[in-house]
């Protein structure tokens, strides 16, 4: 499957899950900030990705849940240098060079959860499965 095909399938999953129009979705679109996705929407998106691509989205793989609870990684609501390093390692499938220590976690989550990140993630997952990429 090509990256363009992955991107189109991801976009369609977002259209169906969030009820947005295809024209609202670009690689830079943020699910939280631009599409106003809420908790139930994220569940819907994850379930659709799993079904559409035949992958399993394991806990913490797409959303850095437990990392954000580590006081060494997030202090007073902002990322530490160690937090930036941990996120870049966890999300090595995408480019997080824009993350810097001192960034507010809420702001980071809004900016980080983009369509491009999801496409990068799916591409990475499919590449790890023989005869699926």
């Amino acid at each position, binding site marked *: 499957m090509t990256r363009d095909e992955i991107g189109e399938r991801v976009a369609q999953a977002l259209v169906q899950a969030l009820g947005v129009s295809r024209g609202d979705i670009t690689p830079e679109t943020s699910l939280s900030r631009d599409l106003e996705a809420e*908790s139930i929407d994220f*569940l819907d998106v994850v*379930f659709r990705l799993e079904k559409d691509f035949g992958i399993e989205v394991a*806990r913490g793989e797409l959303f850095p*849940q437990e990392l954000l609870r580590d006081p060494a990684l997030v202090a007073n609501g902002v990322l530490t240098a160690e937090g930036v390093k941990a996120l870049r390692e966890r999300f090595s499938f995408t480019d997080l060079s824009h993350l810097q220590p001192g960034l507010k976690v809420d702001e980071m989550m809004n900016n980080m959860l983009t369509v491009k990140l999801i496409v990068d993630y799916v591409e990475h997952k499919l590449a790890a499965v023989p005869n699926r990429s």
Partner: protein
Amino acid sequence: MIAGAGVDVAPIGRVARLVEGHRPSLDRIFTDAEQRHCEAARPSRRAGRYAAAFAAKEAVFKALGTGWRSDVEWAEVDTVRTDPDGGVAISGGVRREADRQGIARIFVSAAITSDNAVATAIAERQGDDAA
């Protein structure tokens, strides 16, 4: 002493769409007991029960101050069962977070309208009985 409070509103239609579209994945959101409780309702009431359960879970997360992104799972809050201390049944990461905060129990209440379900959660700190 009250340690935290949370409230959430879940649109019944939105929850119904999630439930109907992803039945094989429902175990990751709703416990077996919750699914039995919801499915036991008349067809016209089932989605409302699911929405109430969803709103209650989100309210519990808010009462704990964790939010859905934290290290907690939806199915770790069982909204139709109670712990021995009278609070809503919690387990796993939700229990660990409650223990970390010294929270003994979390009380939940929910209501269902024609379009939405609303739920509130009150987290009570340990030692309140002796106070």
